[in-house]
C-alpha cells in the first residue's frame, strides 16, 4: 500500500528558503501582452479577435480547436495589436495574439455562478473547459479531458499534488499557506464528479506548516485525507505520486485513471474552484521569481501574457548579472536565451542563476559507478540508454525500455563524470516517439 515515497530519486539543494516566507504580490504588466496560441497539449487555439479589436479583462480571444484543446482569455483590457509570430519560452517563434494594455483593467465576464452541488457533472466539466483550464503543473494537459472519464464510479482517488519537489519553487507552497480553503473547495468539486472517490492532499514533509493547516481544515471531512510524503525529487511526478499514496504503479502506456486515480496540481484545483465558485476563467499564474541574481526573491501573481522582463523590472532589476535564466525549476525547467518572452498557462517560475554549473563542466568518460541506475525513479539503466542514444541504436533503446523515461534529470544530476545522460535519452526518446506516430 501507500509507502509515501518511491525508490530512487535525489536530494538536491532545495533553495526554497529564499522565497517561501514572503506573501504573493500582484504585479501589472507594462509591456504588450503576448498570448501564444499553443499553451497546452493538443491543438492550438483559434483566434476569434482581429487586429484593432478592443478587448476586456476576461474576454475570450481564442477558442478551442477540437476536444483536446483549450480557449484563451485576455488578462487585460486594451487593443489587439497584432496576431503574429512571437518568441516564446520554447525558444521558437509561435503564432500569438498581441494585446496592448490600456491600463484600465476593465472587466467583462458575467458568468452565472451557481452552487456546484446543484450543477450537473457535465455542466461542471463544460465550465472547466470553457475557463481554459489545463494542467498547470507544467504538462498542460487540458483538465476537462482528464476529468471526462467514461466510468466516473471507477475513480477511487482524487489526488491533489502538493509535492512541489522542484528545488527553488515555492508558488504551490504560498498558495497552500494563503488559500488552503480554496484548495479544499476545489477538491470537493472533484469529489462530486467522482462520487466513490477519496480526496487525497499529498504534500512533501518539508512543508510541515501546510500539512498542519490541511489536517486541521479537513478534520471534519470524511472524504478528504492529507498525506505527508517524504521529501525527495521527483516526488511530484504523476507516476511516483500515485505510487507513493496508493501503492499503484503505472507505466508510459497507462493513464492515472487506469488505476482509478485523478491527479491534479494545486493551482489547477484552485483554477477549477475559481471557475465554478466565482465564474472566472484562467487569467493569472503565481510565478516564483527567484535565484541568486534576483534582488528580492518572492512569488508574484502575474497576468498570463505578461513578459518575464516586466517581472524582473518590477523586482528592481538584477542584483548580479545572471548567467542562466530558467523558466521553471532547475531540474526540468527550460533555459531562456532572451528574457522578453510571455508567461503562459504552464509557467511556474523564473529562476535566475549567477553561476552556470553545467556550462563549466566537461563531460568525461563513464566510470560505470551505477549512480544513475540507483537514482532513476523509473528503474531504468540511464548509462546504457544514453549509450544507445549516442549510437542511434533504436533497438537497444527500446529493449531497455527507454520510452519509460520521465525526463526527470536525476541521472544527469548524480553523474560524477557529468555526462549529459538525460539530454541524450530525451532526444532519443523524442525520435522514437516521432517514429511511432508516423
Amino acid at each position, binding site marked *: 500500500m501507500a509507502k509515501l515515497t518511491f525508490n530512487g530519486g535525489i536530494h538536491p539543494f532545495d533553495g526554497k528558503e529564499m522565497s517561501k516566507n514572503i506573501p504573493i504580490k500582484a504585479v501589472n504588466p507594462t509591456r504588450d501582452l503576448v498570448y501564444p496560441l499553443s499553451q497546452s497539449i493538443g491543438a492550438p487555439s483559434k483566434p476569434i479577435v482581429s487586429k484593432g479589436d478592443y478587448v476586456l479583462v476576461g474576454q475570450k480571444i481564442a477558442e478551442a480547436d477540437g476536444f483536446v484543446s483549450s480557449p484563451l482569455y485576455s488578462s487585460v483590457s486594451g487593443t489587439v495589436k497584432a496576431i503574429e509570430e512571437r518568441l516564446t519560452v520554447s525558444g521558437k517563434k509561435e503564432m500569438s495574439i498581441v494585446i496592448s494594455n490600456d491600463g484600465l483593467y476593465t472587466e467583462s465576464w458575467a458568468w452565472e455562478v451557481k452552487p456546484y452541488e446543484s450543477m450537473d457533472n457535465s455542466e461542471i466539466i463544460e465550465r472547466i473547459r470553457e475557463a481554459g483550464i489545463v494542467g498547470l503543473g507544467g504538462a498542460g494537459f487540458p483538465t476537462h479531458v482528464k476529468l471526462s472519464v467514461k466510468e466516473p464510479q471507477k475513480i477511487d482517488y482524487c489526488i491533489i499534488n502538493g509535492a512541489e519537489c522542484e528545488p527553488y519553487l515555492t508558488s504551490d507552497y504560498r498558495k497552500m499557506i494563503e488559500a488552503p480553503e480554496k484548495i479544499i473547495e476545489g477538491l470537493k468539486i472533484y469529489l462530486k464528479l467522482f462520487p466513490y472517490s477519496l480526496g487525497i492532499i499529498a504534500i512533501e514533509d518539508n512543508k510541515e506548516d501546510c500539512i498542519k493547516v490541511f489536517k486541521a481544515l479537513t478534520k471534519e471531512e470524511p472524504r478528504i485525507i492529507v498525506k505527508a510524503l517524504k521529501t525527495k525529487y521527483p516526488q511530484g511526478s504523476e507516476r511516483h505520486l500515485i505510487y507513493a499514496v496508493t501503492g499503484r504503479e503505472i507505466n508510459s502506456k497507462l493513464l492515472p485513471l487506469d*488505476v482509478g486515480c485523478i491527479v491534479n496540481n494545486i493551482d489547477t484545483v484552485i483554477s477549477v474552484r475559481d471557475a465554478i465558485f466565482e465564474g472566472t476563467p484562467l487569467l493569472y499564474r503565481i510565478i516564483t521569481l527567484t535565484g541568486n541574481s534576483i534582488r528580492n526573491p518572492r512569488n508574484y501573481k502575474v497576468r498570463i501574457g505578461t513578459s518575464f522582463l516586466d517581472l524582473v523590472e518590477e523586482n528592481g532589476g538584477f542584483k548580479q548579472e545572471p548567467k542562466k535564466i530558467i523558466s521553471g525549476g532547475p531540474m526540468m525547467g527550460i533555459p531562456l536565451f532572451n528574457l522578453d518572452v510571455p508567461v503562459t498557462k504552464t509557467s511556474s517560475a523564473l529562476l535566475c542563476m549567477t553561476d552556470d554549473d553545467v556550462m563549466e563542466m566537461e563531460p568525461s568518460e563513464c566510470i560505470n559507478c*551505477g549512480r544513475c541506475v540507483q537514482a532513476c525513479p523509473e528503474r531504468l539503466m540511464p548509462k546504457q540508454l544514453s549509450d544507445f542514444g549516442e549510437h542511434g541504436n533504436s533497438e537497444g533503446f527500446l529493449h531497455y525500455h527507454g520510452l519509460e523515461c520521465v525526463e526527470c534529470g536525476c541521472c544527469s544530476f548524480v553523474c560524477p563524470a557529468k555526462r549529459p545522460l538525460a539530454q541524450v535519452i530525451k532526444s532519443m526518446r523524442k525520435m522514437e516517439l516521432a517514429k511511432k506516430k508516423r
Partner: protein
Amino acid sequence: MSDLLNVSSNPHIRSKTTTSSLMFSVIVALLPATGYGIFHFGLKAFYIIALAVFTAVCSEKLFCIITKRKSTIGDFSAIVTGLLLGLNLPVSVPLWIPVLGSFFAIVVVKMLFGGLGQNFMNPALGARCFLVISFASIMTDFSIDGVSSATPLQAMRAGDSVNLLDMLKGNTLGTIGETSALALLIGAVLLIILNVIDVSIPLTYIGTFVVFMGIFGGKGFDAIFLTQHVLGGGLILGAFFMATDYVTRPITFAGRIIYGIILGLLTGIFRVFGPSGEGVSYAIILSNLLVPLIEKVTVPTFFGKRGTKNA
C-alpha cells in the same frame, strides 16, 4: 555583454561529486593501510609504492601524449591503480617490479582498452596476476631481509596456528597492504560513509566465502578458523577496494549480489583446492570477465511494469 544567455539542456544543477572526488576518496581510504604497510615493512615498502604510483601516472600521461588524447591523469584514477598495485606486492620484490607492473596495468590493461571506464579488468589486479605468472618466485617471496617465514594462509595450510590479534593488527607476512585488516577496515568504513561504495559486494563476497569455507574448508563452521580465513591473505583488501571497483563490477544491484556470490565461491575454490592457497586476485579478475553477462541478465524491472488496468 551579449544579449544571449547560456542555454543547455536540463537539469541545470549537478551534484558536487565528480570522478576525481571519488578517486580521491579511495586514495584517502587506502592511506591507513599504506601507512601501516610502510611502518610494518620498512622504507622499502615506501619506495615500492611510490614507484608504482609514479610509473602509473607517467605511463598514463605518456600514453595520452603519444596517442594525442586529452590528458586523463587529473581524474586520479592512475594514482589509485598505482597505489593498489603497490599494496599488492611483497616487500621483497626488486624495484623494477612495481615499474613494470604499473606500466602493464596502465598501458595494457587500461589504456589500450580505451582508458578509464572501458577496461574490463581491474588494472592493478591484471598487472599483479601478470607479475605472479611471469615472475612466480619473486612474487611469492614474502621474506623480510632474507629471513623467510610463512604468511598466515601458508601457516594454516601447514596446520600451524596463527594469532588472530596479529592478523587483525597486521603483524604478519603478506603483501605490503594486505596484512592489517584493521587499517583496511578503517578505510572501508570511510568509503561506505562517504557513499563511495556500498556494502552489497563486500558482504555477499565475504558471506559466500565464509559459508563455502565452512562446508569445504575441512574444519566445519569453526569460528576461529573462518575468521582467520577472512582476515588472511588479500580478502579484505580485495573485497572492499578491488571487487568494488566501479568499472569492473556490475552496474545493477542484483548483478552485484550475483557477482559477490561468484567471487566468494571462486575464492573459496582457489583457497581450498588451488596450489597456492591464495585466490582473491584470480577470483576478482575472472569475475570481472563475467560482468557483461551478469549485467545482461539483471536488468531491473522498470517502474510500472507490474501496473495493470483497474488494479
